[in-house]
């Protein structure tokens, strides 16, 4: 497995058709602030592409440039081969579902959905049948004559979706589509949203700061930071094989060990850290004596009270914190060096499965393919 960072360009997938091509796009504000820094990207037809990053990472600026609300300082945007870099927003066959929806408060649900269609000079009959179809798709038929403030959050979200899909855009942009909903509603809405999008078959670019949202909805994710892509890949790729410490840290929980390579063989390496020694069951692109990071996710650690056999891949500690989540429990263990390692246990029985309590001495161990060696 290669752990060297991949070059940050798109891996070619020749069999699929490229719908949106972004070429070396840069946005500089006020002559100094680089919001987006030389990003290139291909979005395939039919996929849901996620842009994931913290606030201020440039993801929204990138989305706004796709929509046409911002002009890039440098670079080009192509949609189905056509250069749309300088096309104003109202001429692009791209529609957006806005964060907190931006529904027109003075128009009814019906009029909101019809707004875009009316701009296209469609005939009255055509508009009517299209709006009816959209209402049906979003299960809003009985709310057609309501104003947005007469709807609940979930209904408003569906109106926003119906409105952005009404014009059958080639590309749909989703700006934090579930950000305004509460947690319980999010899960059902998320699936609903994906189902509708798949039914329509529209290509999407999704912007979010919520990794769960990105993981469940997107087929590919770009992790963004400070205006550039740190990694692009499928959700499981990003989670299980992050290419840098910052991606590993940003996506999910991780225990990060710093160590030195003491054995470097093609089929295994050994990394000596302060707390423990890692035996990694594959080769790395590095050399002997190199300082590397070892990332280990909490759910890949098993807790026992008895000392594991062998000298590798275990560590001892004292339980200092137990965080109960219902379906799983996270134990915080303090090692002899004083650092705290998190281990996650699934509560597959109704008594807490490993029977550990505060102050207990315990051993953590893991398999030789559980960790990720990071050189960046």
């Amino acid at each position: 497995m290669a752990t060297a960072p991949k070059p940050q360009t798109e891996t070619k997938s020749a069999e699929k058709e490229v719908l949106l091509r972004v070429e070396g796009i840069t946005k500089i504000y006020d002559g100094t602030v680089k919001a987006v820094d030389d990003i290139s990207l291909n979005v395939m037809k039919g996929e849901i592409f996620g842009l994931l990053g913290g606030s201020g990472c440039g993801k929204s600026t990138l989305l706004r440039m796709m929509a046409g609300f911002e002009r890039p300082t440098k670079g080009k945007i192509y949609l189905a081969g056509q250069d749309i870099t300088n096309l104003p927003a109202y001429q692009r066959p791209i529609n957006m579902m806005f964060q907190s929806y931006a529904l027109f408060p003075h128009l009814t649900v019906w009029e909101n959905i019809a707004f875009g269609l009316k701009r296209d000079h469609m005939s009255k009959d055509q508009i009517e049948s299209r709006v009816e179809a959209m209402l049906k798709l979003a299960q809003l038929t009985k709310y057609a004559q309501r104003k947005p403030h007469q709807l609940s959050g979930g209904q408003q979200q569906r109106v926003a979706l119906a409105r952005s899909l009404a014009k059958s855009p080639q590309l749909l942009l989703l700006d934090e589509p579930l950000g305004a909903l509460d947690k319980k509603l999010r899960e059902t809405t998320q699936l609903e949203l994906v189902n509708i999008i798949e039914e329509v078959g529209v290509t999407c670019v999704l912007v979010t700061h919520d990794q769960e949202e990105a993981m469940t909805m997107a087929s590919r994710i770009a992790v963004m930071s400070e205006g550039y892509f740190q990694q692009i890949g499928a959700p499981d790729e990003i989670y299980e094989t992050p290419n840098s410490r910052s991606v590993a840290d940003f996506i999910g929980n991780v225990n990060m060990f710093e160590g030195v390579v003491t054995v470097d063989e093609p089929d295994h390496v050994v990394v000596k850290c302060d707390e423990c020694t890692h035996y990694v069951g594959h080769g790395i692109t590095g050399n002997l004596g190199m300082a590397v990071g070892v990332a280990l996710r909490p759910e890949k650690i098993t807790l026992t009270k008895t000392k594991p056999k062998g000298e590798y891949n275990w560590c001892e500690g004292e339980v200092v914190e137990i965080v109960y989540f219902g379906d799983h429990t996270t134990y915080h263990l303090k090692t002899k060096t004083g650092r705290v390692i998190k281990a996650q246990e699934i509560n597959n029985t109704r008594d807490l499965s490993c029977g550990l309590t505060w102050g207990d001495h315990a051993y953590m161990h893991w398999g030789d393919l559980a960790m990720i060696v990071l050189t960046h």
Partner: protein
Amino acid sequence: MSQASNKVFANGWMFAVYLFLYLPIVTLVVFSFNDSKLVTVWSHASTRWYSALMQDGDLISAVSLSLKIAFLSALMSVFFGTFTAFALHRYSRFRGRTILHSMATTPLVMPDVIVGLSLLLMLVSLQQWLGYPERGLFTILLGHALLGTAYAAVVVTSRLKEMDGRLDEAAMDLGAKPLQVFQLVTLPLLAPALVSAFLLTFTLSFDDVVLSSFLSGPGFNTMPMVIFSRARLGLNPTINAVATVTITIVSIAVIASSFYTSHVERKRKREMALAYSDGNK
């Protein structure tokens, strides 16, 4: 202090304030129905001064001039004020923004006398050079519109600040050209602010006496000017009558508008409660 005496004090205080505010107005209204020729001596009730008002051509034409000026200047104020507000709100960076911003609001704090005097000086010199404009309705209108624009700009700006800028983007995203965005989204949402700006500038113009005095020409007397000049010669009960008519009209407008707003607000709250109670079906 006990709670009861606290309440007595609060009520007493409120009563005193209301008395201070409204006693003069009530007195004026009552004395407009006084039969006596002396404004301050009550004889018996009559509508004598209202019939006198009907006969008073000067006062009637002054009222109609005032209404005309107030209406037109309010229209102009809202028009220019809206554009000023837009320029200031939408375009955060352009040359001279700071100057425009402070200049637009200066008339709010500048004493009317100064504004009136400087306008008069300007108009006089313009008239000397160009022979235009003659002082009269047009010049009064100009002065009132100048003042009103500043007020309207403030009202509209505060509404624009509240408005969600993404609505414009959403409209554009759905294919509306900039002019359509303004017409279909911005304007309808701005309408309440435009109405209140109109009412505000209308009243400002209607009761202005300072600017009008500076800017009017012979034969152009607005209602406040007439009242003011007559009051200096000794009060005439007809003035009470015209004031009462004005108060009645204003009160009806104010009460109607507040009823309307509270009705809309209640309806909106009810509908929102309804939407949330039937949940996310």
